[in-house]
């Protein structure tokens, strides 16, 4: 990329003025004439046959306009597919409203539509649903037990995905003869991605356009359109999905929700606008959850600390249904494919399973399995370091990939990164602040300070190739961008990605402004409208800048070519002799010859007769981008200092240092924001958040009283240091930056906690690490 003026600078965000003055437009801010409000009758049992649904009393509640069951609406199911044999993947359907059976507490059974949200809630109270209850399956043990009740009849052993991969020749012999074999068993808590804006939708039928307009807060507008059109049996053209401002998503909104389809169906049936805004109770208990996984992993090491092999068994509790488009394979396949991570692992074997239980279903959540497997692998290195008497940073130094490109035992080729550099720098930053001395001084006072690290990489810029390798039958990957200039020289850019806090209106505009030599105020991004954007895969997997940003730059470059061609034709010179700077085309040989973009647009649109015959009127260019390699890897090392409090078991984070490398940072302030926010969510998973279920499948967390979202009390300031290894695979040199913070934090925090616990001999490998477990560990020490 040529030396840019804006890329690499912390340009002020275009999103800020409206969001700061209360003029954003979130989905619940939309009010349409005659709009009705929907709420859902939800299952009160975790597992059961629906004996009867009686909505007659509901329909008599003042304010209630209509109420529908699955039978009333006759909607097509939501079904996601993997192209794998039945022995590896069992497809299951998710009905929009439960039909014969309910599979979790909170599952939508009927939709109630009323004049306002209060009346809709009144209506719910009058619904009479009776169930023939079945024994619920609420844990991995119960799901896999012989003779266990089946959540889906077609899924034997309650198993949706079961893959065994890699199995390097001779791996058993390697483990049998290795000088050091360490084992980690880890369970990670079920979490809620918890965007502060819950899910919601406003749908209405537009007679003039003959379209169902679905305004919904989704990360994947085109995927919602596809599912809505199939479920409602409409031509896809007859559905328009528009995304307003979004109050976060983090993955929970990158799958298609049943409620958004049901609300759209009600709007279509009633020919009136219908709004559904999820309340927090439903968002906590009946939305998409994530992250409940169980790892049993062995690692073999040589006496010199070099890793010889990794042997893993991963079970992911995906809850009641497979999500669209990712399927229940999302977590186990991510963990299985990527686990060796930044290390030169010569032998690898993994079995990855997804099981189904009577709990709310799961969706991808920021990091997807990487927060967990990185934590497990980093625990293995710490444990091996202890066994071998090595420094925990030194053992990593001996094992991280340093020669790039590197093709791993998992058949993935890693592009250049700064694994060793980030590790060394992070350790030095912690050393330079004197934390090792402070730790020793604290120990002398009987206090418990611990220092922990996590070194990891993160594949970003997944293209179609990478998703196809997972055998997804709906294969995300490419992106399309159009860049259009109007007669005033202003530019409209489209992207198929969907910002929900990541500042794309700013960063994508930076890319275009640099490419065209244009004032950024002249560039406006359009996203989240299926009528404006040909197709797109939305925002997830840190793909927006890597894939979407590349398409944006290519489209801008194409438009630049046309601007040059028109100017060159006017001057009778070669297009190569024209450069684009400061909003104008200039002759290289005579910079006093200038055609402003307004001048060129004037020719392109208003006086097209002046154009040469081989140049079409108009100023628009479209480009697509896909990644046909294994993608591009961001990397980072996190260093954490914690103090464990003897009296309360509290884990206090005293220092957090992050050395990250996401290639070219389009906007460093935005990247830092992503790091800090990601780290906060990683800490949340490590220490605080968990949804548990009782034996009857009743969720524990139905309010913020029962689900501890960390505040400014618990989340520390983070020192961030940037390294820059540009990507050769993206058009800007950028790598993804959306998820890394979340990936590294649990491992670094857990390692620091265990370092602090070292005198007790207790090691904690499950998350969240609660005050109770820490208190117990410290009291064991006190007792001995």
């Amino acid at each position, binding site marked *: 990329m040529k030396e840019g003026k804006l890329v690499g600078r912390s340009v002020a965000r275009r999103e800020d003025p409206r969001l700061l003055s209360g003029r954003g437009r979130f989905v619940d801010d939309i009010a349409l004439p005659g709009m009705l409000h929907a709420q859902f009758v939800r299952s009160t049992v975790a597992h059961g046959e629906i004996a009867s649904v009686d909505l007659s009393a509901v329909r008599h509640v003042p304010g209630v306009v209509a109420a529908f069951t699955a039978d009333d609406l006759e909607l097509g199911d939501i079904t996601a597919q993997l192209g794998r044999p039945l022995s590896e993947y069992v497809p299951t359907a998710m009905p929009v409203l439960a039909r014969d059976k309910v599979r979790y507490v909170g599952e939508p059974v009927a939709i109630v539509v009323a004049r306002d949200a209060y009346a809709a809630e009144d209506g719910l109270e009058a619904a009479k649903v009776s169930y023939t209850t079945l024994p619920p399956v609420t844990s991995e043990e119960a799901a896999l037990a012989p003779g266990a009740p089946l959540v889906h009849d077609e899924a034997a052993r309650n198993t949706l995905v079961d893959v065994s991969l890699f199995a390097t020749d001779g791996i058993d012999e390697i483990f049998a003869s290795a000088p050091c074999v360490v084992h980690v068993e880890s369970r990670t808590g079920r979490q809620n991605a918890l965007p502060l804006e819950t899910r919601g939708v406003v749908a209405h039928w537009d007679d003039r356009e003959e379209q169902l307009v679905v305004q919904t807060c989704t990360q994947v507008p085109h995927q919602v359109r596809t599912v809505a059109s199939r479920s409602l049996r409409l031509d896809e053209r007859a559905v328009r999905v528009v995304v307003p401002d979004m109050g976060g998503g983090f993955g929970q909104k990158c799958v298609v929700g049943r409620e958004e389809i049901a609300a759209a169906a009600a709007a279509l049936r009633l020919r009136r606008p219908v709004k559904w805004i999820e309340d927090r109770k439903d968002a906590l208990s009946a939305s998409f959850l994530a992250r409940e996984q169980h790892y049993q992993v062995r690692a073999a090491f040589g006496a010199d600390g070099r890793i010889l092999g990794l042997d893993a068994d991963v079970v992911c509790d995906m809850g009641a249904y497979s999500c669209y488009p990712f399927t229940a394979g999302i977590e186990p396949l991510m963990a299985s494919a990527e686990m060796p991570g930044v290390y030169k692992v010569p032998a690898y074997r993994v079995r990855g399973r997804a099981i189904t239980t009577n709990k709310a279903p799961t969706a991808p959540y920021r990091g997807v399995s990487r927060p967990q497997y990185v934590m497990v692998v980093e625990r293995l290195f710490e444990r091996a370091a202890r066994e071998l008497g090595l420094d925990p940073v030194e053992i990593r130094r001996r094992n991280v990939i340093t020669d790039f490109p590197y093709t791993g035992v998992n058949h993935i080729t890693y592009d250049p990164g700064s694994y060793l550099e980030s590790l060394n720098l992070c350790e030095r930053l912690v050393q330079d602040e004197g934390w090792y001395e402070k730790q020793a001084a604290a120990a002398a006072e009987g206090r418990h300070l611990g220092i922990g690290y996590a070194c990891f990489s993160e594949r970003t810029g997944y293209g179609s190739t990478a998703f196809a390798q997972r055998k997804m039958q709906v294969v995300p990957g490419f992106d399309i961008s159009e860049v259009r200039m109007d007669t005033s020289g202003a530019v409209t850019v489209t992207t198929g990605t969907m910002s929900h806090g990541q500042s794309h209106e700013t960063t994508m505009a930076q890319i275009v402004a640099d490419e065209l030599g244009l004032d950024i105020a002249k560039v406006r991004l359009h996203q989240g409208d299926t009528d404006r954007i040909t197709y797109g895969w939305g925002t997830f997997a840190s793909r927006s800048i890597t894939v979407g940003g590349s398409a944006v730059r290519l489209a801008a470059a194409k438009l630049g070519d046309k601007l040059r061609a028109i100017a060159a034709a006017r001057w009778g010179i070669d297009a190569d002799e024209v450069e684009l700077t400061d909003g104008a085309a200039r002759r290289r040989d005579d910079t006093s010859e200038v055609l402003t973009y307004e001048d060129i647009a004037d020719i392109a649109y208003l006086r097209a007769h002046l154009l040469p015959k081989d140049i079409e009127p108009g100023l628009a260019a479209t480009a697509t981008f896909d990644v046909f390699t294994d993608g591009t890897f961001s990397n980072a090392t996190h260093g954490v200092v914690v103090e464990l409090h003897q009296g309360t078991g509290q884990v206090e984070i005293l220092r957090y240092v992050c050395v990250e490398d996401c290639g070219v940072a389009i906007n460093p302030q935005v990247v830092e924001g992503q790091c800090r926010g990601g780290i906060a969510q990683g800490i949340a998973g490590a220490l605080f958040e968990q949804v548990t279920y009782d034996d009857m499948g009743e969720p524990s967390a139905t309010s913020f009283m029962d689900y501890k979202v960390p505040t400014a*009390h618990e989340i520390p300031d983070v020192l961030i240091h940037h390294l820059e290894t540009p990507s050769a695979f993206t058009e800007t040199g950028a790598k993804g930056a959306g998820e890394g913070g979340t990936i590294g934090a649990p491992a670094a925090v857990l390692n620091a906690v265990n370092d602090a616990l070292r005198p007790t001999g207790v090691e904690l490998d499950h998350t969240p690490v609660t005050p109770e477990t820490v208190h117990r560990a410290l009291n064991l020490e006190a007792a001995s």
Partner: protein
Amino acid sequence: MTDTTAPAQREVQLITLDVNGEQHEVITEPRRTLVDVLRHELRLTGTHVGCEHGICGACTVLVDDRPVRACLMFAAQAEGARIRTVESLSEGDQLGDLQQAFSTHHGLQCGFCTPGFLMLAEGFLAERPEATKEEIREVVAANLCRCTGYQTIVEAIDGCAQARRRACASRCDSKESDVCS
């Protein structure tokens, strides 16, 4: 067949609310919360709803200058009080200093919790302009943000407080004003 849980007839009342210096007459059910009336009757949608049970603070507004969870208060209870919402912080397109500080420090990402933090800080700094960064952190811990990790919110409010103190001190030095009592 009527259910006892649902009122046979919906009761409404006329209330007057003083919001951002304007008087609004609203016909509403007594059970409607202040935040719902602000958002859906008065169409002041800058104030957001994040939990409806008083934990997240996205609905924070000022009631008689004090930060209040507008989801925990019925609109009828706010009669006679002065209510201020995020819409009062800027004049036209000109952001106020607190809003500008949030932008400068990247104290917002998705922006959903932001109006709540702004009104929380607006009320707090008015009461305690000399607040230290640690005191600001304590107050910021009253609300939830899922995007930023809080550091930049604390820095934004602290930056705004410092700038106001500097401006106040320089006014005193130049004896142009006696506002800094």
